C-alpha cells in the first residue's frame, strides 16, 4: 500500500499537487483504455481467424480479407450489443434488489483473465 500510504501534508492542494493528481488520473485512464483495446483486438483476432481462415494457404486471399473486415465490424457490433444489454440488465437487477451484479459477475467470469482469452 505504498501508493496511498501515510506521510501527510494537511494543507490545501498546491498547483504541484493538482498536477500530480491529474497526471495519476490520466495515467490510470490510459492504462484502462489500453487494456480494453488489447482485449478487444485479441478477441477479434481469435474469432475472426477461426471464422475466416479455416485453412491457411500460402497467401491471404481477397475473400479472406473481406471476411476479416466484415468479421471485425460484426464483432464490434456484438460487443456493443452485449455491453448495452448487460448494463440494462444490471440496472434492472439493482432496482429489483437483486444481487450486486458487478460483484456477482466478476465471480462468474473468474476475474480479470477469462480462460478463453
Amino acid at each position, binding site marked *: 500500500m505504498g*501508493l*496511498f*500510504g501515510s*506521510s*501527510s*501534508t*494537511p*494543507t*490545501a*492542494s498546491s498547483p*504541484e*499537487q493538482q*498536477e*500530480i*493528481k491529474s*497526471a*495519476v*488520473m490520466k*495515467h*490510470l485512464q490510459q492504462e*484502462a483504455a489500453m*487494456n*480494453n483495446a488489447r*482485449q*478487444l483486438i485479441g*478477441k477479434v483476432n481469435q*474469432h475472426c481467424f477461426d*471464422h*475466416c481462415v479455416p485453412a491457411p494457404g500460402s497467401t491471404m486471399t481477397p475473400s479472406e480479407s473481406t471476411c476479416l473486415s*466484415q*468479421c471485425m*465490424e*460484426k*464483432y464490434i*457490433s*456484438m*460487443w456493443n*450489443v*452485449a*455491453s448495452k*444489454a*448487460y*448494463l440494462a*440488465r*444490471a440496472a434492472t*437487477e439493482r432496482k429489483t434488489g*437483486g*444481487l450486486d*451484479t*458487478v460483484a*456477482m*459477475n*466478476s*465471480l*462468474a*467470469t473468474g*476475474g*480479470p483473465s*477469462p480462460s*478463453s482469452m
Partner: protein
Amino acid sequence: MDQTLDVSKLSDADKKELSQYLQNESQKAAIQQNVHHIADTCWKKCITSKISSGRLDKNEEACASNCVDRWMDTNLAVLKHLETLQRQ
C-alpha cells in the same frame, strides 16, 4: 516513471480522492471485462453461419440480446443454488 507522479507529495484529501477514483475506474474495468467475456461467449453461440456483412442481422441481434439475458439468468441461478447449498 516520470517525476510528476510522486504521490507521497499529495495531501490526505487528494489521496482519498485518488483512491476513490481508482475504485471507480476498477469497477468500470470489471464491467468491461464482463462485457468482453459475454461478447466472446455469445459470439460463439450466435454467429454460426458464414459472415457476409459487417453488421449483425436481425436474427443475430435477437440471439445476442437473448444470450446476454440468459447468461445473467444462469449467473443468478448458480448463485442462488450455491446459497442453498451453503445453508445445508
